């Protein structure tokens, strides 16, 4: 496998991907794509490159298009560079009823960016979150790097974001 970019596939990553493969029938190679991409994305500052996609296709012995389709379908994958910390504010119905829009506006103003953008210092990426994050009775809520913060107030948000400064 010498043509696979070793920066992406160090020993630890390889053994993690091998463990994913064990969950599925041997001839079902595509099944490992999603979880492998999650690992590779995490190791690459939160986004996927063409190189990563090509390398994973080779590693798993699947077509490049198979990996590409997955990378562009699921919303947790980024195919462009993003900030170090990802913020997702839920503004779906239950959260909206408890003023989630104010929380999102506050974060946009504070960071000086709109949803879908990254701050100039690369610290924060404010994801354009369309989904409900299944914490509706903790509304308003957000995830920072997929950790939940619930029952938010403006003051709470300020404190939480300071932790990442």
């Amino acid at each position: 496998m010498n043509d696979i970019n070793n920066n992406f596939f160090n020993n630890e990553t390889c053994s993690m991907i091998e463990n994913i493969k064990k969950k599925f029938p041997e001839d079902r190679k595509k099944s490992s794509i999603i979880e492998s991409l999650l690992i590779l994305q995490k190791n690459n500052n939160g986004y996927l490159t063409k190189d990563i996609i090509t390398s994973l296709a080779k590693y798993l012995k699947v077509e490049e298009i198979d990996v590409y389709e997955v990378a562009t379908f699921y919303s947790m994958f980024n195919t462009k560079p993003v900030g170090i910390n990802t913020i997702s504010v839920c503004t779906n119905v239950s959260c909206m009823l408890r003023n989630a829009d104010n929380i999102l506006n506050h974060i946009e103003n504070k960071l000086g960016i709109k949803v879908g953008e990254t701050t100039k210092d690369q610290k924060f990426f404010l994801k354009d979150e369309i989904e409900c994050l299944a914490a509706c009775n903790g509304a308003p809520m957000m995830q920072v790097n997929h950790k939940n913060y619930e029952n938010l107030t403006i003051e709470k948000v300020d404190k939480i974001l300071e932790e990442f400064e």
Partner: protein
Amino acid sequence: MTLICTETYSKQEPASLETYLTLEGYQAWQKILNNKISKSEIINQIKESGLRGKGGAGFLTGLKWSFIPISDEQKYLVCNSDESEPGTCKDRDILRYNPHAIIEGMLIASYAIGASVAYNYLRGEFLDEQWKVFNKALEEAYQKGYVGNNILSTGLTINIFPVLGAGAYIVGEETAMLEAIEGKRGMPRIKPPFPAIKGLFAKPTIINNTETLATVPKIILKGAEWYKSLGINNGEGVKIFCMSGSVQKPNNFEVPLGTPFSNLLEMSGGVSNNSKLKAVIPGGSSVPVVKGELMLDTNMDYDSILKANSMLGSGGVIVMDETICMVKVLQRISRFYYGESCGQCTPCREGTGWLYKILTNIIDGNGTINDLHELERIAGLIEGHCICALGDAAALPVKSFLNNFWDEFEYYIDNKKSMVVG
């Protein structure tokens, strides 16, 4: 009140094996293995208990299991922990506070349908907490020999594997979930064939919701009649309701099916903002909205909610007080379905976009009365014309919001602002 899925929640270390064992954990599984209870007997017990799927469609669980062909081929069980129906947040708590009940339920279901492999598909956003807790619990269950090869020296093999998604509401639809586990884009399949005949990796497969499976062990341990009798009024069994929105104390409550809505509202501390009840979406954002007065006279069971022209759905109860603008709520709901449509069916892909655009136009003060008729027409074009139920889920709210709150939409159009303060 008898608690099943939520029984561990108030304990110290709710997710631990020790806690689960003190609450008769894995006793149903051991009873099956020790007494060599047959597959058909288990399926019959689940049938008789009246257990209905708690993921949204409310299909009879025992009946679904009985569709699995009797044959020697490989079969699969899939637990649906994709939980992403807006207003629904019950499975995430079972995953982090009572994971062993899910594991035991998965084992029993796998045994009943003859599956030697089971997958639990967790939405990707659960990776920091629920994923870790569930994996740890599974490790403990493997160590104790409840799961794996040669389970408790009986020669039986059932392996359970957690799989992690990466963000997509549509994967909660059962055939889209099978596509996702196969490593593809999560696009629903055309049925038939039904998964029970041709499912994961083209093999017979049963898909059940997390809460459904976590309820199974206690039914096997205590009997079908016991479970049935937990319901009150016209209800049978129990259900978790997620109370969110305009209530003082949003929370999850596992209560008898048939519990009056007014009791649930009281348990959640009543309506917030010193306001009155205006409307309720009783089963996740995909089901029709019900006016407050009607809801106060409705019990939380499948038939009663159907009589109120809505559905029990996932049990996500979204409460709205009188300060809430119905136009804005519907626009937000439409944004969701527009964003989450997988795009396979033209009526859904295009229609959800039109619904959202027309509603946004109204919010921006550029609406006309004709837009309201147009919304109804488009909803009618989507409904029943798509591969999966997401299309209907986008259409039903539109129709019910307009039916119940036409005046409010009209007022918004005429005055270019909301009828209520909020």
